[in-house]
């Protein structure tokens, strides 16, 4: 699974961290960041919902 985050687009809504807290968090600037060791959280079925939850299309998830 490949996760792409675009911090330039991010508006800090926190929707990603709310939807899949095992994978996404916010850094000190309140912008999207990956949780250290996030690979363990990629089994969360809600993860696939994150790109749709993001208000500014800053997150892409693709298989492989």
């Amino acid at each position: 699974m490949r996760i792409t985050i675009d911090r330039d687009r991010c508006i800090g809504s926190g929707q990603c961290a709310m939807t899949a807290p095992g994978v996404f968090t916010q850094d000190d600037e309140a912008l999207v960041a990956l949780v250290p060791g996030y690979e363990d959280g990629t089994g969360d079925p809600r993860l696939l919902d994150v790109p749709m939850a993001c208000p500014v299309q800053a997150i892409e998830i693709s298989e492989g």
Partner: protein
Amino acid sequence: MTETEIRPTGSPAPSFPQDRTCPYQPPQAYTDWRGERPLTQVTLFDGRPAWMVTGHAEGRAMLVDPRLSADWGHPVFPVVVQRTEGRGGLSFPLIGVDDPVHARQRRMLIPSFGVKRMNAIRPMVQELVDQLLDDMLAKGPTADLVSAFALPVPSMAICELLGVPYADHDFFEERSRNFVGAKTTAEADAAFGELYGYLHGLVGKKQAEPGDGLLDELIARQLEEGELDHNEVVMIALVLLLAGHETTVNAISLGALTLLQHPDQLEVLRRDPEAVTGAVEELLRFTSVSDYMVRMAKEDIELGGETIKAGDAVLISISLMNRDGKAYEDPDTFDVRRKARHHVGFGHGIHQCLGQNLARIEIEIALGSLIARIPGLRLAVPVDQVPIKAGHDAQGPVELPVTW
């Protein structure tokens, strides 16, 4: 599609906005428009035709589309409320500007409203909620839930965050009400002028004697470094102050009213306080306090088989998107156990609410504590006698007489 194809020749498109009759339901006229087509045509008070997007998927697509502008300062930006007529040129930071100006302003504020920072103020919010409930219970057994509870919670919290003295709250709450409720441009200008003057003075005072609120940070980091001028800081403060209490007050009061009108759902939350977090999302979906968003097309846009022309007024119906049967099963059923994913209660796209995580915490703690502390809470008047706000405003009760 021409107008004659969608309604009888000569009959004007229905007027928008219309007032709700039930405080938590979109007006009947709106609900008649949803279903067949993802967009319809309406008429604004000044006779200008406007597109209204009613579909969930289509509305989300529009709210992220850079061909739609939110630039209130544009000379022909659509006017939905009479009080804002003729105020072209006055641009409101964050909410009334497009990128790149919007992005520059928002970037400065994102860290102050991050999830972790908001979670850190939970104890502060809980403390002020507890205090307000203590006072209400001591004075009871009746109260106006708006003035005794739903208004002071977000008002005190935003003052604390911004570093605005809450002692001045009577002054700015009254001006905010006058500004939002103004019938004419002159009334709105007078209230706006007083609010602006107050915050202008406060920013000046803070430059001389810095405190530790968000305004102080903005002044220190941005004004001093020349990234913001004095006017912009004052205008940002004004937008945050207005947005910080004009919306959440309604979410709390309308949320309480909706729960009181759905006793089975209230019972779910009484038995399982943990469910309040999810209930907040369902309340945001079901009640749609911000009923609509206003945009203007910068280019021609194809949507749902229609062409929205450059310069056309476009309204995004938050309340109908949140009740779209293609997105939600039984969309008109209030179900606190529902996973209300992808609701647009806070909007969508670059303008999605900056303070959403503050609002979530305030609504959750306020309603959770209200339910726990006052088990016998009920309306003191029949629901059809609860005065509610006009269709163009943030939706909610003007007063909410309760007893216990």
